[in-house]
């Protein structure tokens, strides 16, 4: 008996909810004109929805940014290893000097120490990296 009453009351509210959806624009307009407080509350509700949308968009942007940063980070932290022997290092320096149009005295390279070869190779590779990233930086400045 009591369960029936609960269910009946729930059914009335359910039916009321469904009936509202079937109502004509004229009747709804009349209702809106009378229910001023409800209309005001509904306008406040719009602001809540807009705030929710804004928050969701922020979260999405943050997520994209994070993915982008992670990708960029993995790119930046790529490790390069120098060739094993001094002669191989000298060959690489020569190769890079030619491809990057650097003024290097090849003769002097024949007597270079391992330490100087490492230093020179590092400088050349840094120059190459800077040259590769400069076009996009220019774009960012614009």
């Amino acid at each position: 008996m009591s369960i029936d009453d609960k269910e009946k009351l729930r059914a009335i509210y359910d039916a009321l909810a469904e009936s509202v959806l079937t109502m004509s624009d004229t009747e709804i307009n009349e209702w809106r004109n009378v229910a001023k407080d409800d209309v005001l509350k509904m306008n406040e509700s719009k602001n809540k929805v807009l705030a929710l949308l804004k928050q969701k968009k922020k979260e999405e942007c943050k997520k994209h940014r994070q993915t982008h940063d992670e990708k960029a980070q993995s790119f930046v932290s790529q490790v390069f290893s120098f060739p094993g022997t001094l002669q191989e290092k000298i060959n690489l320096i020569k190769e890079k000097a030619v491809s990057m149009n650097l003024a290097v005295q090849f003769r002097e390279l024949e007597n270079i120490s391992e330490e100087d070869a490492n230093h020179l190779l590092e400088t050349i590779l840094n120059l190459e990296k800077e040259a590769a990233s400069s076009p996009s930086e220019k774009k960012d400045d614009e």
Partner: protein
Amino acid sequence: MQDDEGSKKSKASLVEIEAAIKALMAEDIAWFKIQMFARFRAYAGCPWDGDDLVQESLLTLLEGNRTWDKKVDFAVLFQGIIRSVASHKYEEWKKDKEDESHVEMEEPATPLGTMLDSEKCAEFLRLLRERFKDDPKLLTVLECWEGRFNYADALQYTEITVEQYEKIIRRVEGALKSVREKVEGGTK
């Protein structure tokens, strides 16, 4: 494969959902209907008020727990989500109340407490019927609603016009509001 691509194309993106909900809010009548629908769905058994129900339904969509196939009208889809969220929340809350080992959930912002109290429900229905005792047509509509008749069947059974039916909806809504205040106020 082609079907997959087709369904991907018809699934709405976040930007499209945002545009659709904004368009819905811009239509005063449609938005009023959605809000009233959510409010009464909440009253029918959900610990949240209509406003929270709308927010939660939108969140369900934005987080991708429900998707919008753009072939479906957005307002219709949104009504469906509200229905489903309200029903799910009611079951969850009811289970929590019945199972003492459950962690206590927040107290409802809607008349759900009344809905779970047999005596209050009986009193509620008695006062509602008493209010309309001189209006047999309206009482018949209430009977149809209690029996979960659909809209067309209710119209046919009561032999009233659509216009009369719409007036009844508003009268019942007004009566429910004041009876609810009486029933809930009486126990405070």
